[in-house]
Structures are given as C-alpha cells and as structure tokens.
C-alpha cells in the first residue's frame, strides 16, 4: 500500500469489517483504544519482546500494555551546508538560538538566493519540525497528563519561528506553506540553503547526488541539552478469529535479529531492538544518528488523542508564521481542541 493513502485504505478495511492481520503504520493508539489489537503477550514470544529498546517499547504502550510493536525508527538531525558556512565564515555549527539567528543572517547576506534556514511548517510534517524547536526551548506537548500546547514557552518558540520568517527574513518564502520533501529538502539539495532539519534518507539522497557538501550535527538549543525528535513506526496485529497462531509465527520470524536488521538497513532507518543497535553501531554513516538516539524524544503517540492533535497541528501551525499570523491564538485553539478530544 502507498504511504500517502494508507490511512484511508485501512479505515475503509475496518469500516467493511475486514481489518488486516498485521499493519505497519506510524500510529497505533486509536486502534488499541477501539480494542482491535492483540497485546504483546498474545502474539510475541518473551525473547522478542525483551529485545525492544526501552524508549521505543514505552512508545508503543496503551494503558500499560505493549500494543504497537516498534518496527523501525528514525531520528531527525541538524544538517548544514559546509560550503555556505565556509563562504559566510562560520566556523562551527550554532549551539544556541542566538548563534543560530546570527549564522542564518550571515548566510542570507551572501546573496544570490542563499537562504539561512529552510523552515517547513506546511501540512506534511509541521508537527515534527515544531516538536524539535519546542523541545529545544524547554517546552513540551504535555505537562504531566494534561496538554500544554499553549504554554508560555511554546508561545515564545512559535513567535521565534515567526520572527525568523517575518522579522529576520532568513527563511525561504512562505515557510508556513512549505512542505518538507518537495519544499525544504529540495532547496537544501539544490545548495541554496544553509541549514535544515533532516534525517538519514535525506543524507542518502545528498550522497547519491553528490552536489552539496554537508555535515550533520545536533540542534541548537535555547534551554538545556540539545534534543531531537525520534520517530518510530509500529507493527500491530489485529484480532481476528483464528489468526492468532499464524500472526505469532509471522512476528517471531520477522523479529529475528538478522531479518529485521537487514530490512531496516536496506531502507536507511534506525534500529528498535538492542540486538539491532549492537549490529548497526559499526556503520560510520549511521553514527551521527545513533549518537542522537539516546537524546531523542517521541511525540505523544501513546495518547489516542494524538492522532487527531497531529492532524490539527498540520492544518493550522503554518498559519501562525505567515505575516500577520498570531502564534498565541493558533496554539490556544490547538490546546482547546486537544483538551476537548482527551476530555481533560
């Protein structure tokens, strides 16, 4: 199935009462909430279950039980164009947000269409870009059990991003209306952009094209140590009459270290198992991402409300960084919707 239409396809299958046996998706909590999924102890052998990295296993829990089995992960990282950095006489990647703004200005001043930072807040993946900036200012999606989307810190962060576009003018045109893959990444691959948040598949494309010299590092932070976003995909098993044994056999075979590692390596993603981490840590290309993995945080995917909050963020966050946008109003509305969705 095609990744762009998979949500729709699966929804249709469930509407017609013909769920798949096993599904690979980036969300699981809503399915667990609707009581459609097997828990880990029903379909995974203890050996497989214990091999999952702690953080990723926790990211697949619904009401304390593992329902979304980690299948692969990726971590975002800070990419910068070393040619543009050299031309702007920047010697090291920025560590703080002040450094970041200054460097972005230097690059933009080079002229000739140079862009300091490519900021994609369009609907494709606004929640990912936002998470990273939010965390590096000490903010978060939630405070304890409650949503904290419109916290003072977060309002400040979104204001900062809007300023990048409208006050400092160091981003590409209309960042609130730029997607990641065909927008920000495309510009970086064309050598126009000084800095962008990327991930390993982008590195693969850059290496294949060989046009842009770049390096990968940690995010600039405005509070505490640099944080990045980890994303995990899930494998989930749907409860259907008579499929439990077959599903169990399939999953155990799938999660045998050599099988899963081979698949993850081929796709350029990162491991989710302890055995996989040991096997892949020798790969120099993956080292920057594996180094970031311990400091990677996950979006609140274990909350069933997240599946809707994410879509809400995608459809509204970009409006806040457009000229005349109102970061606080946008975050207030998101907070209000999220709270209503969770009932708390």
């Amino acid at each position: 199935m095609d990744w762009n239409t998979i949500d729709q396809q699966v929804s249709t299958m469930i509407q017609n009462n013909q769920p798949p046996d096993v599904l690979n998706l980036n969300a699981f909590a809503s399915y667990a909430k609707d009581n459609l999924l097997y828990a880990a102890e029903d379909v995974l052998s203890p050996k497989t279950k214990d091999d999952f990295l702690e953080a990723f296993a926790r990211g697949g829990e619904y009401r304390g039980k593992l329902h979304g089995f980690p299948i692969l992960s990726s971590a975002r990282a800070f990419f910068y164009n070393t040619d543009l950095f050299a031309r702007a006489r920047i010697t090291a990647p920025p560590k703080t947000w002040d450094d970041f703004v200054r460097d972005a200005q230097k690059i933009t001043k080079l002229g000739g269409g140079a862009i300091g930072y490519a900021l994609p807040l369009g609907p494709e993946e606004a929640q990912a870009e936002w998470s990273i900036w939010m965390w590096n200012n000490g903010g978060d999606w939630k405070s304890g059990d409650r949503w904290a989307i419109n916290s003072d810190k977060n309002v400040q962060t979104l204001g900062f991003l809007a300023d990048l576009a409208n006050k400092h003018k160091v981003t590409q045109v209309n960042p609130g209306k730029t997607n990641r893959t065909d927008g920000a990444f495309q510009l970086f691959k064309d050598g126009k952009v000084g800095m962008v948040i990327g991930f390993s598949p982008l590195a693969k494309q850059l290496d294949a094209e060989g046009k842009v010299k770049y390096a990968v590092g940690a995010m600039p932070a405005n509070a505490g140590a640099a944080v990045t976003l980890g994303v995990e995909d899930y494998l989930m098993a749907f409860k259907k009459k008579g499929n439990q044994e077959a599903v169990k056999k399939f999953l155990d075979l799938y999660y045998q270290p050599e099988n899963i590692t081979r698949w993850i390596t081929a796709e350029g993603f990162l491991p989710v198992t302890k055995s996989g981490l040991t096997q892949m840590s020798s790969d120099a290309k993956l080292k920057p991402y594996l180094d970031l993995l311990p400091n990677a945080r996950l979006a609140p995917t274990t909350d069933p409300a997240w599946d809707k909050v994410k879509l809400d963020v995608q459809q509204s966050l970009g409006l806040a960084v457009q000229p005349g946008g109102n970061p606080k109003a946008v975050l207030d509305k998101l907070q209000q919707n999220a709270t209503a969705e969770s009932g708390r």
Partner: protein
Amino acid sequence: MLIGAVVLFPAVELVRASLSRYSITGLYQGAVGGRNYARLLQQDALGPVALNTLTWVGAVVGLTLVISLALAQFLDLEFPGRRLVRWALIVPWAASLIMTSKLFVWIYDYYFGLLNRALVALHVVRGPIDWLGDDRTVMGAMIGVGVFVSLPFTTYVLLAGLQSIPGEVYEAARVDGASGWRTYWAVTLPLLRPALVVAAVLNLIYVFNSFPIVWTLNDRNPGFGHDTLITYMYKIAFKSALRDVGLAAALGVVNVLLTLAAVLVYLNTVRWRESFEA
C-alpha cells in the same frame, strides 16, 4: 442489475454512512440520525469553502467555454498543419490529471519555476511570485490548470457542433449581406447551442468533482482556505482533526445533491428542450 450494482449500491452506502458515527479508525459506532448534517453546517470552514467552489466551478467552466469557442472556430478553418494542431490539443486530455498537476506545481514554483523565470525575464514582474503559497494567487493558479485540462474535451464537442452546421445557412447569410460578426451572432451561436449546453453541463459536473488539481496544487497550504467542497470532504475524512467518515459522507451526499441541483437549474435557464428542438 448493472445500474443497481454500480450506482444504487454506493449511493445507499453513502447515505447510510452519513447517518452513522465512526471512530477515527473507521470502526462503526452506531446510527446518529441527522446529526452529521447538523454538525456539517456548524463548521466554520464550510462558508469559505462553498464560496471557493463557486469561484472554481464558475471561472473554470466559463473561461473554458469562451476559449474553446475560439479554439473550435480556429480548428474549423482549413489551414496547413491542422491535423497536427488537432492532435496536439488532445495531449493534455490524455495525460493523467495528477501528472499534469505535478508538472504545474513545478511550473509555478517560486524558486525553480518556469513561469517566474519567464515573467521576470520579460519584465512583467520585478521578482518571483509564490503562485501556490500566496493567498491572492492560489485560486487563480488552480483555475489556470483547470481550464488547461478542460479545453481539449470542450473544444472537440464544440468543433463537432460547428461541423454539423450546414453550409447552406452561411450561404444564405452571405446572400442577405450579413457581416462576419453578425453571421457569428445570428447564425453560428444559435445553431451551436445544443453543443454548448452539452459542453457546459458535462464541464459543470466534471469541474465540480475535480479532485486531483486542487489537491495537488494546494497541498502545501495549511487549513481550508483554498479547498473546494470535494477536497474539503476528503480532508474531513482523513486529513483534519475531525477525521470523521460520517461527517464526510454527509458532505458527500450534499455534494451530489448540489451537482444535481446546479445542472437542473442550468438546464432550466437555457431551456434545453427548445435548444434541441431548434
């Protein structure tokens, strides 16, 4: 049987879905009567989206008809290479809508697009324009593509209409001493009316239901500011915080009724019976 399976069954399913509640995963959670319709009316985005739809359908169908009339007239003339031009006109029709739309995304692009490069080189504009990101230009850019892909079909319908007009009536007009324009207004257009009505009705339905163009050219814009009722329906079901199949189905039913109503109103205004009996 066939009509039952192909038309009736989906229609019944759609109406039933619009009267039901589904969880975000697609799980059926019971009947809710007309509640989805009431909720639909409460959506803030519905007004602007309906207005967008009106602009989109009106502009695309109107412009398409006017340009197609001129094109058909031109293709009706005898000139060397006519066959080639006629074939060339079919190309945008034969290409998939998604492909055409993707192509236009690149043509319109702020940084890499051909359109901006051409306009800047010709000194029409001072700097590039973000056609698909600027709220003032998105709809116009989409309408441009909508017209582009509607032209071939419409032109051919009108061309067929033109060729069915017998030569004698033109002769008669000439004998009466009518000028070129006068002949066009008094003879060609009235006789072309059946073809025009068919082209207008089919385009109305086609453009209203057009999903790929609006979806592809508008996919970078957050919110529902440039959606039509069709893309809005899809977003309600799968791409917005609503994630509500029932609500989307309700809009689907409304869309079908709207199309039907629009076509009936149109046919009534042009008095189609007369135009066919003429």
